[in-house]
């Protein structure tokens, strides 16, 4: 089996639109959540959201490239442009060397809804414009990025709800381990427009702590009242180890383990058993024991049920050594389809700069979370091996283990 390393990262999120901004936000516990008045007007229970700036791509991409990109595609372009640059890869390299793309995305609501509105008004599909179809499909990110960046390897979107981004890295690692690809662009993207989250808001899942947006996302806290939706995009360049060494590429970390599972039970409720299976499988894949893990980046989204089941699972697998845990979602909100990739970027930044980002807004643990060693203030600490959890609707679970280089 070949070894798999990460040689480039890029991020466009509510806590920063480049790696350095995000590193500072993570270290300082800075929250990127705010109010979107359009959500209230549209009928949301909660106007809270991660506030993500739109990249300005006029003059950067051609008209044809821009009109096929939906909002999440713009974020993904921005993150991927950064990640490729970070890995020392340019368009000339990509034209000469086969590179793949596996990217997480599970909606493109705005493009679909806007097309519907035009048809209702005009009763004529030929007035939708040429970009509508390419913006509307779930695979919009991979179809756009593969043409913009001249990618000629594996090319597909992974739709696995809030674990989409994490599964892209696990599956990408498998392609590289098997020797099928030398390099794959992986990541996750999430739209943040008000059209995209209405049905999720309708489940009463979102925090309504509108008077304190910066305190609204409170993973593991007894007084949490729901998650805060967020988004953007995160990209990671996966590369075969010898290939990276030959290129002289900077190496952030090696992917040691990928664990997956499906709960097979409830469409929205997570499971401690399924979560534990994913973590245990990742440990077995990495040939490691729980005691080898220095830090766990939890999925915890700030919902009572989700946080509770994950706390039970972490306690069951890692309780004996009280492994340090934090959820970065107090700062970022829940980045959904992007979260599994962005949280690997966050974890890599912690590993590179030797700190654990705080689980902000955890003031009073509940009966489940009190058993965990949750880091509530930034902790300067050398991190060698870390695990990141991602869980999604339908019970799709993913856990990844990384080792610092």
């Amino acid at each position, binding site marked *: 089996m070949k070894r798999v390393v990460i040689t480039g990262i890029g991020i466009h999120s509510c806590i920063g639109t480049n790696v350095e901004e995000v590193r500072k936000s993570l270290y300082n516990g800075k929250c990127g959540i705010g109010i979107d008045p359009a959500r209230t007007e549209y009928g949301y229970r909660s106007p809270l959201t991660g506030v993500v700036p739109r990249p300005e791509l006029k003059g950067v991409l*051609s*008209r*044809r490239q821009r*009109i096929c990109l939906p909002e999440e595609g713009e974020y993904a372009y921005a993150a991927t442009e950064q990640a490729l640059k970070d890995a020392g890869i340019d368009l000339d390299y990509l034209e000469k060397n086969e590179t793949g793309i596996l990217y997480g995305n599970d909606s493109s609501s705005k493009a679909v809804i806007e097309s519907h509105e035009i048809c209702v008004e005009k009763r*004529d599909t*030929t*007035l*939708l*414009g*040429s*970009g509508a179809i390419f913006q509307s499909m779930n695979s919009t990110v991979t179809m756009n990025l593969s043409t913009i960046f001249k990618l000629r390897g594996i090319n597909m979107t992974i739709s696995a709800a809030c674990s989409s981004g994490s599964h892209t890295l696990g599956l990408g690692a498998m392609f590289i381990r098997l020797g099928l690809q030398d390099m794959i662009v992986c990541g996750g993207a999430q739209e943040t427009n008000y059209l995209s989250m209405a049905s999720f808001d309708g489940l009463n899942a979102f925090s309504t702590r509108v008077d304190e947006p910066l305190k609204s996302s409170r993973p593991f806290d007894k007084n949490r009242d729901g998650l805060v939706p967020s988004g953007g995009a995160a990209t990671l360049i996966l590369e075969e180890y010898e290939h990276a060494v030959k290129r002289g590429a900077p190496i952030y970390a090696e992917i040691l383990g990928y664990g997956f599972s499906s709960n097979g039970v409830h469409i929205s409720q997570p499971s401690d058993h399924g979560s534990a299976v994913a973590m245990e499988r990742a440990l077995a894949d990495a040939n490691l024991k729980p005691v080898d893990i220095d830090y766990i980046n939890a999925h915890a989204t700030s919902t009572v049920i989700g946080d509770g089941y994950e706390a039970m699972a972490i306690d069951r697998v890692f309780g004996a050594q009280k492994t340090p845990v934090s959820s970065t979602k107090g700062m970022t909100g829940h980045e959904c389809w992007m979260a599994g990739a962005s949280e690997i970027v966050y974890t890599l930044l912690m590993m590179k700069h030797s700190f654990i980002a705080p689980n902000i807004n955890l003031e009073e643990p509940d009966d489940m979370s009190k058993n965990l060693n949750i880091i509530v203030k930034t902790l300067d600490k050398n991190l060698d091996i870390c695990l990141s959890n991602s869980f999604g609707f339908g019970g799709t679970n993913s856990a990844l283990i990384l080792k610092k280089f």
Partner: protein
Amino acid sequence: MNRNEIKEIVNNFLIEDIEVEADALKDEAFLKEDLGIDSLDFVDIVVVVEQNFGFKIKPEEMTNVKTLSQFYDYIEGRIKAT
């Protein structure tokens, strides 16, 4: 609406919406070969013509429209016919 007004509107949306280089907008320019307008761009031209002139291009009437001048002729003819 006279021909000069039509030319101004068409040239303006070709520059602003389709991002054709202004210098390339010559009467004898071929839409495809000189201006780089492909089949997907033409889908967008249908939309901007409807927005600017209030009628929809009929694809079968465009088969002989090859140059920019012929495109102005087509728009002018449709306006006169209404």
